[in-house]
């Protein structure tokens, strides 16, 4: 759509600007302020420059949790996006059954994150949990609190269970927006099922997929509550992700300067990846 130049439009975005600036800029400034000082108490702090940043970048525990975080987010995207598209394609297109599917699909999304962790914590237990018990019965020695691979498997499975419905809902809605005429044309051309998907459905899903991928990337990169409740980051530190390391540092050890420096680096990583992704996907055809 052609846009009209109009600088008065600023008045329309002003409320959003003020609101988000209040809840983002002021706290961010505080974080920046902390990151360059050593803080002893409310009124005693002294300037340390980039000391904390240097310190954080060399910290091995942080590097490890960053590595785990990247693997986790990549795994989440690789599993959930195709699965979500698949589920959306399988869903009934209209009527009461479609409504029922939508509602059932939305249930995992509406459960508070710590409850999700609690559910899986019980569900996966080898003695009283259905899933853990079943795994043991069919011959796997499964114990997510003691075995690293099992813990990873459980955290991933929990995330797939929890968030694939979001991808599926967005894709389902995107699919419903495709006019019937496209399918009729494809039928006249005797297009194969795959060709319909590849040349009609997938391109038309692009805009919702951008949202789905970005949301999944952002949220999986910030994941905190669920693995914390499920495994407490263990066994050892094998499922300790970035947010948890950060929270332990800031709230647990009260190491504010270092935590602030870490926060900024963390924020920059998320920002950079999202920006790259966002520009790569949106700009090539916006100028057409």
């Amino acid at each position, binding site marked *: *759509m052609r*846009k009209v*130049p*109009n600088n008065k*439009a600023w008045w329309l*975005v002003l*409320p*959003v600007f003020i*609101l*988000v600036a*209040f*809840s*983002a800029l002021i*706290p*961010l400034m505080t974080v920046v302020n902390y990151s360059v000082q050593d803080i002893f108490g409310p009124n005693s702090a002294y300037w340390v420059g980039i000391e904390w940043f240097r310190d954080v970048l060399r910290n091995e525990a942080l590097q490890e949790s960053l590595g785990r975080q990247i693997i986790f987010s990549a795994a989440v995207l690789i599993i959930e996006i195709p699965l979500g598209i*698949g*589920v959306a394609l*399988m869903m*009934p297109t209209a009527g009461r059954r479609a409504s029922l*599917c*939508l509602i*059932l*699909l*939305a*249930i*995992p*999304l509406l*459960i*508070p*994150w*710590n*409850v999700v962790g*609690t559910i899986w914590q019980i*569900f996966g237990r080898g*003695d*009283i949990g259905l*899933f853990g018990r079943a795994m043991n019965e069919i011959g796997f020695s499964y114990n997510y609190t003691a075995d690293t691979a099992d813990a990873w498997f459980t955290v991933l499975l929990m995330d797939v*269970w929890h968030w694939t419905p979001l991808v599926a809902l967005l894709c*389902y*809605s995107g*699919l419903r*927006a495709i006019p019937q005429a496209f399918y009729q044309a494809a039928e006249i051309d005797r297009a194969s099922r795959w060709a319909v998907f590849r040349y009609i459905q997938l391109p038309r899903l692009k*805009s919702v997929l*951008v*949202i789905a991928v970005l949301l999944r990337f*952002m949220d999986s990169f*910030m994941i*905190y*509550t669920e693995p914390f409740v499920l495994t407490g980051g263990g066994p050892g530190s094998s499922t300790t992700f970035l*947010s948890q390391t*950060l*929270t332990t540092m*800031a709230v647990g050890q009260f190491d*504010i300067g270092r935590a602030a420096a870490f*926060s900024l680096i*963390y*924020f920059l990583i998320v920002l950079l990846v*999202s920006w790259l992704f*966002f520009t790569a996907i949106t700009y090539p055809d*916006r100028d057409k």
Partner: protein
Amino acid sequence: MNQRKGFGITFYILFLMLPIYWLLNMSFKTNQEILSSLTLWPKDFTLNNYAVIFTDPSWYSGYINSMIYVSINVVITLVVALPAAYAFSRYKFVGDKHLFFWLLSNRMAPPAVFLLPFFQLYSSIGLFDTHIAVALAHCLFNVPLAVWILEGFISGVPREYDEMAYIDGYSFPKFFIKIFMPMIRSGIGVAAFFAFMFSWVELLLARTLTSVDAQPISAIMTRTVGASGIDWGVLAAAGVLTIIPGLLVVWFVRNHVATGFALGRV
């Protein structure tokens, strides 16, 4: 072909429902039964766990608190996001692209980063432990998302409508509320759903900004994991009850999702 599809979706829904079934199942059991053995349905069916929640104010006030701040958040989000999304969709203005990306970048801000500054900010202006504090804090990630979604829907409405209303002599606010908002009601429904969802399930910020008066249900649930061990039955019942308000919201927006949205731009 269709049979295979039906089989696939049934299988997937079963996978989704199993943990939910487990939660529901546990909520009707006594603690003794939960901890002693694995049973596929409650042997000593009991409603005691639910009774505990509905009779103890420290439990049910959590639901009320959560609902209050989530509602405030949804209203604020829609009120500020609608005009902004309209502006982003229709007009070119100084810094529009940068502002749009900056907004989005806040959706990417990890809550863990903002915990401490938020606590200080809201304490210093005397909003600590109020519903409005949590509602405002959740705007950090809900407003950008709402602007993003609404912008997509608004871009799908041809500009001719705006011009026709202008020629017919409608003022901008009157046009916006009377003509434009009904046209994008699906978008409003979907944006409201996402705002509700992300605010309802968020724990980290909500817990940091509240202590007693505005404590959300999810925080109360973590608190019960106390010295006397975990009361699994009550915990499961509380978990089941957290799903219900969300189900009502989904019920209202299901048709908006099912009519489909491709989202104009992006």
